[in-house]
């Protein structure tokens, strides 16, 4: 019972953070709302029994990725964004579209009774279980993903460090 209440409360916080992220004009406020979203997602994982995933969510997303976001915003010293009135197309088509999509997902989930339900906190997400799965059953996808991330990092380095943009190296005077 307590689990369910907490789950709903943090779900609400998560959604509120996401809406606040869009509503805020200042980049730092938006970034901090995203931190709130990440942290409440971590609590949701914890309530579902995935304690390892929850901890990693906090350490990696809230603690490292978002710190770098805040760092870049601080470094660029980005000011407040300008308010636009927003496009009419987005308002007219977007809101009903989101509602329709949400209803469709809810209807599908409620109609299919064979998917089954799991009580909160009944799936133990112990680190050992996750390690075993990652290095036995899903070894190939895991390693392929790591190579994918490596390629992305190398791509970022190549893009950021183009030799033709850099000034020519100074010639040493003898």
């Amino acid at each position, binding site marked *: 019972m307590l689990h369910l209440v907490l789950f709903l409360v943090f779900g609400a916080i998560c959604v509120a953070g996401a809406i606040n992220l869009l509503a805020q004009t200042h980049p730092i406020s938006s970034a901090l709302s995203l931190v709130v979203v990440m942290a409440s997602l971590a609590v949701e994982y914890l309530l579902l029994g995935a304690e390892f995933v929850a901890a990693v969510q906090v*350490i990696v997303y*809230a*603690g490292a990725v978002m*710190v770098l976001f*805040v760092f870049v915003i*601080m470094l660029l010293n980005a000011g407040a964004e300008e308010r636009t009135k927003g496009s009419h197309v987005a308002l007219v088509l977007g809101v009903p579209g989101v509602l329709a999509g949400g209803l469709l997902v809810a209807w599908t989930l409620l109609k299919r009774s064979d998917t089954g339900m799991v009580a909160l906190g009944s799936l133990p997400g112990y680190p050992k279980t996750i390690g075993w799965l990652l290095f036995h059953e899903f070894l190939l996808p895991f390693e392929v993903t790591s190579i994918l991330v490596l390629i992305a990092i190398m791509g970022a380095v190549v893009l950021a460090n183009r030799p033709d943009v850099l000034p020519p190296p100074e010639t040493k005077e003898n």
Partner: protein
Amino acid sequence: MLSLPIFIIASVIKTVLVILILLTSVAYTVWLERKVVGHMQNRWGPTRVGPFGLLQPLADGIKFLVKEDLTPPHVYKPLFIAAPMIAVICALTSIAVVPFGTAIPIAGYSIPLQVTDLNIGLLVILGVTSIGVYGVALAGWSSNSKYSLLGGLRASAQMVSYEICLGLSLVGVLIVSGSFSLREIVQSQSGHFWGFIPKWNIFYGGQFVAFFIYLMSAYAETNRIPFDLPEAETELVAGYHTEYSAMKFAMFFMAEYANMITVACVATLLFLGGWSGPVFGPRLLVAILPTFWFVAKVFVFLFIYIWVRGTLPRFRYDQLMAFGWKFLFPLAIANLVVTALIVAWRS
């Protein structure tokens, strides 16, 4: 297993006790630092308030409370007020999973000396510490002053970089002991080998290199000399807390020293065998000795912190980054690979 009311009462008492003890140790770590650094520099340190200046922390506390709390007009107020709170909350939270000793029997119940024992205790400390960066970074940004901003920028870059080395240095210990729970990690280090050498991870687990990587990245994580660039007085006035005064400044101060104590506790638990040590004598002594060993090891670690502060000059910023990424990081990975190979070969 405790019943629910007993559990709640025990938890509340333990939480209050731990916070009181932690804050007192923070105050007296400051005193110790001023005394030790004073003697290293051929001065006396605080002597006026109480015998040996022992009441100096109390006097400082009163001073911080009654001083005028200035808020400069150009700051971004919500974050300016929230930043020291984030810093101090994160610093006080992470101590919750630290066990101070074995369970002690009180009124028929076995009460573990730890606020809460989690399966993922170590990860909780890492997570809470990684959130603590926001306190420093946001303080720097919301102060709207160039010195603060530079301090905040340096702090976030430095803490994210050294957190990687810190985390990697702990993985070796985790491989050797096979658990995230701090209590189990300590239990895996009990006993001796070759007759007399304790089975601590720093000796038996071969985590000697990891210990030094941890030591150095921990100094960087807590913004201590020689890694105190976020608050380098000679260039940045006071870095990220330039614009803070009175209790808000004291909160950053408390957070820094509380973090030092947590770091010392983690080092003790993971590398120095936690509360394990010779236990003998009557029942009361048996109950107290493990905690005594724990506190003694933490004290040694804190003393080294102060010793280093009194000895080493500050890094240059590029040296700091090069040291972290080009020396500590490869060394930590090498240590991890070697440890993993040895453990795999043994099993």
